[in-house]
């Protein structure tokens, strides 16, 4: 079955939700993950620390250089991602809809290249 990367894009420096809201969002996200597991769609999930903690490493020319901060200077950065298996794009888009509804951020759906390992 095709695999898709669902990336959650969060606005850097956005007002954090109140503790009550955060708890509600986490409960809703957990419920969607449970639903994915029950449906056999769930492959992997990971939440990320703030993008300011990122380091970019460049070593193509043999010389190693590092820069502090995320690769792309964007207002929105990936805050977490889920890898799912879905029969087709419509199914993946439906999981993305549920995910975005739960976490309140936009979710990008991107297929993996080629067939997944058996």
């Amino acid at each position: 079955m095709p695999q898709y990367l669902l990336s959650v894009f969060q606005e850097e420096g956005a007002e954090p939700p109140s503790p009550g809201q955060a708890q509600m969002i986490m409960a809703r996200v957990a419920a969607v993950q449970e639903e994915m597991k029950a449906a056999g769609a769930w492959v992997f999930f990971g939440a990320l620390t703030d993008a300011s903690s990122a380091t970019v490493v460049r070593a193509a020319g043999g010389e190693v250089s590092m820069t502090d901060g995320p690769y792309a200077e964007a207002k929105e950065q990936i805050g977490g991602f889920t890898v799912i298996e879905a029969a087709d794009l419509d199914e993946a888009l439906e999981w993305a809809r549920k995910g975005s509804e739960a976490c309140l951020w936009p979710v990008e759906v991107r297929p993996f290249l080629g067939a997944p390992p058996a």
Partner: protein
Amino acid sequence: MSLDPDEFAAIYRREAGRCTATLVRVLGDIDQAEDAVADAFAVAADRWPADGVPPNPGGWITTTARNRAIDRLRRESTRHAREREAMTLHDPAPDPPADLGDLDTVPDDQLRLIFLCCHPALGADAQVALTLRLLGGLATAEIARAFLVPPPAIGQRLSRAKRKIRDTHMAYRIPAASELHQRLGPVLATIYLIYTEGHSASAGDDLLRPALTSEAIRIGRTLAALVPGEPEAAGLLALMLLTEARAPARLGEHGELVRLADQDRSRWDRVLIAEGHELLRGCIGQNRPGPYQVQAAIAAVHADASTAAVTDWAQIVTLYDHLQRLCPNAVVALNRAIAVMEHRGPAAALDALDEIDLPAYHLFHATRAEALRRAGRDGEAADALRRAIALTSNAVERRHLEAELAGLG
């Protein structure tokens, strides 16, 4: 035996999209389906002059395309099995590749293809280009002319869209009832664009391209029957039928364009008008107005006028105001300006035209020319007509505009 090139072109226009729709299902890949259909038409061009056109040319093309594709796949299968697997469009219930299935499922295949081409994950521009290319059988250059963009831009748009369909594993199916409403908007827009392209061909010597208009109406009918709870689907069908009813009067004896005002209304198709009216009553009764229903209502006002002089232009301007609120865009504003010219005269029309930004659209300049001529400003009218002539690539429209220009003396 020989084969009339016009007949061959007509068969291509009529059958290419239908055959492609079935071949996409059978082969599970758009590019392979297009190649196979092109191969089959090449075989037809070779054989039909000697053998004659088969009684069911579409079935012949589909079968030949299927056989050619299978031969090609067999040749390539040992070398490219893995790549082909990776490239295959996902089909939730794949047919065995050798099985064409019941040819009566052709309308279903076309609906599958139009929902694929109009998938909301594709941009609107890509949806339109794909539908015209795959269902309409239009060449890239024709699509480019219809949308006033350079051909390479359309080529890129098409290949990018097809790659996305393949890479994201879009399904080849008719959406479930619960998804239909939201999936319908882009489908209606593309069907109507196919209709308007057929009604006023973007290029060549024919003003009308009946295969496209009848194809759009046919898909529109299938769609309206499939979604009876969606008044805009019936509204679109009513609009196309009421416009199509005027087709017999749109061209003169020598293939020249006859304007609405000068048409012999006894030649309008009363059967289509009656069907359009009935559809319109049915969908307006649902009290969920939309742009297609309003445009159909405008066409119905024209159909009700036994002569151009008794047209209820006040009603038409009111309907265009309504339409502009529903979908504000420059082409709607241009059509409203034409109604304003009839209702309130050329000065009011010129004021309305000053607000419209359509410098690359020949009908904008043709409309301005008409308003200027009526206002007695012949010199400026001639300039506007020359601009319109330079911008149209349809030979019939160009001749019409040149005759207008000559008339200004």
